[in-house]
C-alpha cells in the first residue's frame, strides 16, 4: 500500500476525529438524551431530571404553538429564501452582467455589505429603519406611527432575510451564468430566439444544478436562522416565532431544556428530509 501506512494515517486523523466527537457527536447524542428527560433549567427537575420517554415528542407534536411555528418556518423559508433570495439573486446576477463596470461594482458592493455585516449590527440598523417613532421607513413613506414589526411581523422578517441573504444567491448565479458559453446564447439569438426562450432552452438546463444546490443551501440556512429573533423576538403573539426561535424561547426563556432538545431533534429530521429531497432532484439530472 502506498502512502503513510495505516498506523500513521490513523494518527493524523485522530485529532480531527476527537474534535468532531467532542463538539459535534457528543452534543448531538446529549441532545438526544435530554430529549427523553423532563429536564428544566431550575427547580426539582433540574436537580433530578425525570425520564419521560417520548413524552416531550408527543407534547410537541400536539402543541398548537409548535404547529404554528412549523407553518411560520415553512412560510418564512418559502417566501424569503426559495422565492425571495433565489429570485432576486438570479435577477441581480443576470442584470448586472450587462451593466457598466461602476454600476456593477456599486451594486455588488452594497449587496455584499448586507451579507457580511454582523447580525447584531444589521438588526440595529433595521430597528432604526422600522422604528415606530422616527424610523427611517416611516419618514420615507410618510406614515408616522406605523408599527411594522407589530403589524406585519412575518413580512418584516421575510423582507429582512431577503435583504440579508440575497448576496449569496447573486454570487452563485453570477458564477453559474459565467459558465454558459457566449456562443450558445448567440447561436440561439442568431436563429431568432428571444431572451425568455433562450433562457428556457439554453441557460436553464445548464444551471439547473446550480439552482438546486443554491436552493438547498439557502433553505437549510434560512430554516435554522436565528436572526429574526433579534428583530421581532418571535412576537407579537408568536406571529414570527420560527422553529429556532421557538426552541430558544422554550428551552432558554421557558427553562424546559428537555422539551427544547426534543424539538431540536425534530428540526434536524426536517432538515434531513429537505436535504434528501434536493439531493434526489440533483441526482435525477445525471440520468
Amino acid at each position, binding site marked *: 500500500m502506498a502512502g503513510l501506512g495505516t498506523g500513521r494515517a490513523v494518527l493524523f486523523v485522530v485529532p480531527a476525529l476527537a474534535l468532531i466527537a467532542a463538539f459535534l457527536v457528543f452534543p448531538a447524542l446529549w441532545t438526544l438524551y435530554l430529549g427523553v428527560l423532563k429536564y428544566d433549567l431550575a427547580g426539582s427537575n433540574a436537580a433530578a431530571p425525570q425520564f419521560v420517554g417520548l413524552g416531550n415528542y408527543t407534547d410537541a407534536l400536539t402543541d398548537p404553538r409548535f404547529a404554528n411555528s412549523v407553518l411560520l418556518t415553512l412560510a418564512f423559508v418559502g417566501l424569503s429564501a426559495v422565492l425571495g433570495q433565489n429570485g432576486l439573486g438570479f435577477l441581480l446576477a443576470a442584470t448586472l452582467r450587462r451593466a457598466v463596470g461602476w454600476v456593477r461594482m456599486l451594486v455588488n458592493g452594497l449587496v455584499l455589505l448586507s451579507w457580511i455585516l454582523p447580525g447584531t449590527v444589521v438588526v440595529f440598523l433595521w430597528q432604526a429603519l422600522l422604528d415606530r417613532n422616527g424610523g427611517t421607513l416611516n419618514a420615507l413613506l410618510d406614515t408616522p406611527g406605523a408599527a411594522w414589526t407589530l403589524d406585519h411581523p412575518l413580512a418584516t422578517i421575510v423582507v429582512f432575510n431577503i435583504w440579508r441573504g440575497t448576496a449569496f444567491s447573486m454570487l452563485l448565479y453570477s458564477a453559474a451564468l459565467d459558465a454558459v458559453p457566449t*456562443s450558445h446564447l*448567440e*447561436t*440561439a*439569438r*442568431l*436563429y*431568432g*430566439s428571444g431572451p425568455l426562450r433562450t433562457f428556457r*432552452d439554453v441557460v436553464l438546463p445548464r444551471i439547473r444544478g446550480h439552482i438546486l444546490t443554491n436552493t438547498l443551501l439557502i433553505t437549510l440556512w434560512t430554516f435554522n436562522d436565528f436572526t429574526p429573533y433579534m428583530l421581532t423576538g418571535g412576537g407579537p403573539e408568536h406571529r414570527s416565532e420560527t422553529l429556532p426561535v421557538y426552541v430558544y424561547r422554550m428551552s432558554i426563556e421557558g427553562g424546559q431544556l428537555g422539551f427544547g432538545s426534543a424539538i431540536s431533534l425534530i428540526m434536524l429530521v426536517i432538515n434531513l428530509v429537505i436535504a434528501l429531497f434536493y439531493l434526489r432532484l440533483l441526482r435525477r439530472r445525471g440520468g
Partner: protein
Amino acid sequence: MATIELAALEKTYPGGVRAVDGLSLTIGDGEFFALLGPSGCGKTTLLRTIAGLEEATGGSLSIGEREVTRLAPGQRDVAMVFQDYALFPHMTVLDNIAYPLRIKRVARAARHEKARQTGDGLELAELMARRPAELSGGQQQRVALARAVVAHPSAFLFDEPLSNLDARLRLSARTFLKRLQRELGVTTIFVTHDQAEALAMADRIAVMEAGRIRQVGTPREVFGRPANTFVANFIGSTPMNLLPATVTDHRLLLAAGSLPAPSGLGARREVTVGIRPEYLDFSATAVPDALSGTVGIVEHLGTSSLVTLETDGGPIGVVVPEEAEPAAGSTGWAVPRPGRVLLYDNETGDLLPT
C-alpha cells in the same frame, strides 16, 4: 442565396479601438469567401458584425438586396457555426439539429423529419440519439453544420471552422466543407488565421490587417501576386524572400547577385524584390541572372526540401525537389522563374506594376 454587400462598414469599440475600419466589399451569390489575417486583425469582429452580434458603428451592410445594418441577428437570415460548435449539451443530436426549426415553431414531427434528412446527408444518421459529449470533434462539427443547414439561411458564417480538429482530420474536413458548400450553393464567409486553409477552400480571400483589407483576390492571385509586403509575408507556407535591391540601367543589384530589371520602374532607385522559394530553381553551377550563396540549413518538406542559401544580403529560401538536394556547405545559385520576380515600393510596401 444572396449577395453580401459591405459599404464603408465600421466597428469602433467604446474605448476607441477600430476593429473594422471602413470596409467596402461585395461577396457574390454562392461564393465561398475567406477572411484571413493574424490574430487581432478584426476578421472575427467583421464576421460578427455581419451576423449582427456586434453592432456596426458606421456604414451599411446588405444581404441579398436587403439592408440589414440595424436588424437583430435573428432577422438577418444567416446561420453561424462557432469555433466551439456551440452544441447544446442537454439535447440529443436530433434536437440540436432541429433547434432552429423549433424556434420557427415547426411542428415536432415535421422538424424531426427535416432534421433527420439533413443529418443523413452529413453522415449523422447513426448518431441522432446521442448527446454532443458522446461525439468526436469531427462529428460535433458536422452536427453544428447540419444545424446551420437545416435553418436554410441565405448565408453561412463560419468562425474558424477547422481549428478545433486535429491536423489529420482538418485536411479531410477541408475537402468535406468545400464539397458541402458547393453542393448547397449558399453564400459562405469563413474566418481563418491559417493561410493554407484559406488557399485550399476559398473562391476568394480577403487578407486583413488592423481592421483593413490589404488584398482581395482568388487564392491564385493572392499567392502569386501579393499586393503588398504584408500579404507576401503572410501567405505561403514558406515565407517569401524579400530582399533589398538597387535599380541601375536595366539591372536589379542585390547583395547576392544581380537580376534583369523589368521596364517601367521610372526613376526609382531603391526597391524590395520579392520571390517565393517555390518560384526559385536551384543550380549547383554558376548561371547568369542568379543569386548565389552557401547552402546552410536543409529542411525536408516531403517531396521537396527548403534550402536556405546564406548570402551577403541575408538568407534566401529555395524549394528544391527531393532528388536534387544539395550538400550543406556547398555553393549554390537560385534562379528566378520568368515573370515571378515581384518588386515592392520600399516606403509603402505596395506591389509595383511590372
